[in-house]
């Protein structure tokens, strides 16, 4: 990228660029988009960052400065701690399942299989449809009286599970919905990665008599490391943004059992009219996801790319 940006101005370049043709023209071209992002993205975020140090209640006439109080109160609030615990469980569980299952399925269906092309089309559907519809649909599938899943369990002579009414099962339910929606994306990503792998090391290992598992663990997996890193980063970022599917399934209930950090921030702002705390929650969540990304990026196995 740096190369492409610099090359046109190199002295040896065929084209001589005047002063107007470089930085100024560039900024004139990029200007409208940058201004739009600054006005509608950077400025509001800066505004809420500043306001997170005030008692920011839209119904009150003035907002007194209270320093770090919003942050202190947030970190000690049981509701926030509950949402953070839910968030960490949700992030860890969905990512573990989605990446493992995604890799397993991709490795097994990669190659010459009839119907693979059609399967790739179908796999694109869940990640692309509205999470709100996914939430509504799983809420119906998990319905305790008329839901398909409990009916299936009954047919298998298993006892019904209180999916959405029991706090622990409710968290499992939103994890299942997220896994259904996002595992296919992991499969597609890993399939693309597997198909761009160099064939020589795999063939050489096969010729040398390495077993399938040895090849997978010692060659395929290390070669896939960059793709796995990308998948991991994407999912960490996106699980910390998850809102829609939870809102349609449980609205964070029962008793806050499925309240992820974004749901908690939304409820604080738009049901509690407490924008200061809501802003503090969203910034703490952002910092935690950044720290998590940093930790993942620092893991020895992931770093050796």
């Amino acid at each position, binding site marked *: 990228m740096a190369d492409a940006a610099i090359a046109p101005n190199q002295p040896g370049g065929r084209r001589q660029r005047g002063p107007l043709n470089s930085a100024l023209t560039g900024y004139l*071209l990029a200007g409208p988009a940058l201004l739009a992002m600054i006005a509608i993205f950077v400025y509001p975020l800066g505004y809420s960052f500043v306001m997170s140090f005030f008692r920011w209640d839209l119904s009150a006439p003035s907002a007194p400065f209270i320093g770090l109080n919003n942050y202190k109160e947030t970190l000690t609030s049981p509701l926030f701690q509950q949402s953070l615990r839910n968030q960490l469980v949700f992030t860890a569980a969905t990512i573990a399942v989605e990446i493992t299952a995604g890799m397993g399925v991709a490795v097994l*269906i990669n190659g010459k299989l009839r119907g693979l092309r059609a399967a790739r089309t179908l796999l694109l*559907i869940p990640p692309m449809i509205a999470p709100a519809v996914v939430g509504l649909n799983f809420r119906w599938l998990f319905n305790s009286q008329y839901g398909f899943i409990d009916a299936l369990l009954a047919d298998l002579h298993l006892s019904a599970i209180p999916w959405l009414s029991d706090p622990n099962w409710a968290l499992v339910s939103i994890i299942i919905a997220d896994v259904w929606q996002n595992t296919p994306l992991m499969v597609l990503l890993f399939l693309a990665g597997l198909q761009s792998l160099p064939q020589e090391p795999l063939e050489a290992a096969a010729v040398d008599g390495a077993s399938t598992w040895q090849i997978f663990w010692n060659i395929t997996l290390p070669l896939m490391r960059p793709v796995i890193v990308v998948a991991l980063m994407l999912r960490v970022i996106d699980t910390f943004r998850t809102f829609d599917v939870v809102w349609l399934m449980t609205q964070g209930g029962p008793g806050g059992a499925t309240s992820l950090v974004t749901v908690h921030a939304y409820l604080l702002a738009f049901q509690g009219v407490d924008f200061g705390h809501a802003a503090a929650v969203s910034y703490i969540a952002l910092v935690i996801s950044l720290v998590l990304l940093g930790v993942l990026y620092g893991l020895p196995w992931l770093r050796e790319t």
Partner: protein
Amino acid sequence: MMAAVSDETADAASVAVLPTRWRPFPIGLAARYAVLLGTILLTIFPLVWLVITSLRIPADIFAVPVHVIPASITWRQYVNVFTQYNLAGYLWNTIVVSLVTVVLVTVLAVPCAYAMARFRLPFHRVIVSLLLIMRMIPVVALAIPLFAVFANLGLLDTLTSLVLAHTAAKLPVAVWLLIGFVQDVPKEIEESAAMDGAGTLRTLVQIVTPLIAPGLGASAVITFLFTWNDLLIALTLASSENAQTLPVGLTNFVSQYGVDWGAMSAAGVLMVLPTLIFVWFAQGLLVKGLVTGAVRG
């Protein structure tokens, strides 16, 4: 030139079906087909169930024990969502917001990506990291201050506020995606255009833009679908049917009328239809956009 580009796209799409010389996982072929079949069934079953529910008569929806095959099929729910509920209004708002957002994002993102890829901009690195950080920020962190800002401007509950919010939220991804496509255009083409006397703007509009058509398509489809699907921004900024979109409409099915599962499923099916159309006709673009965006992100 165009032929070369579309060939490249076709190649990218057909990589999927190229036979690999080394057999990736030499377990039994039957087992691999079983995994493929299981994956397909798990993927489509919830969607099939949504469609089945939308076609059931009410007595059938609330039948115990649950039976998979509907006793009889009715289109009544699809009529109801338009007659008993304001689905037409939600649909109109969603279409307007999504289309206007796509146009704005495209018009703003193309010159920006071109400048980022081809000009030596001061603060280049700052802008790049800003784009990445904007991609990471939870939407709720943006929605909270935008509510306050739009309240001050008197723009709450208008389609304008939704379009502005979505444009800002989708721009970073679109710019990021397009930078890569511009970089893939051979610089010689632009240089010869410049030697022929074409100015920067003309080079961008007449030479570069057609060459990055697949990228434009990918970014437009992704922007459209993510705007179409969004619940959180619309839930925050739209308080009435003036500006509420389909996903917000789904939440209204619950709170206002109890849960009308049949109508809600019909609305859900209608909401998913454009996605299915795009997946069917533009899957190459979508995969390219998602994978490129992901790999570069």
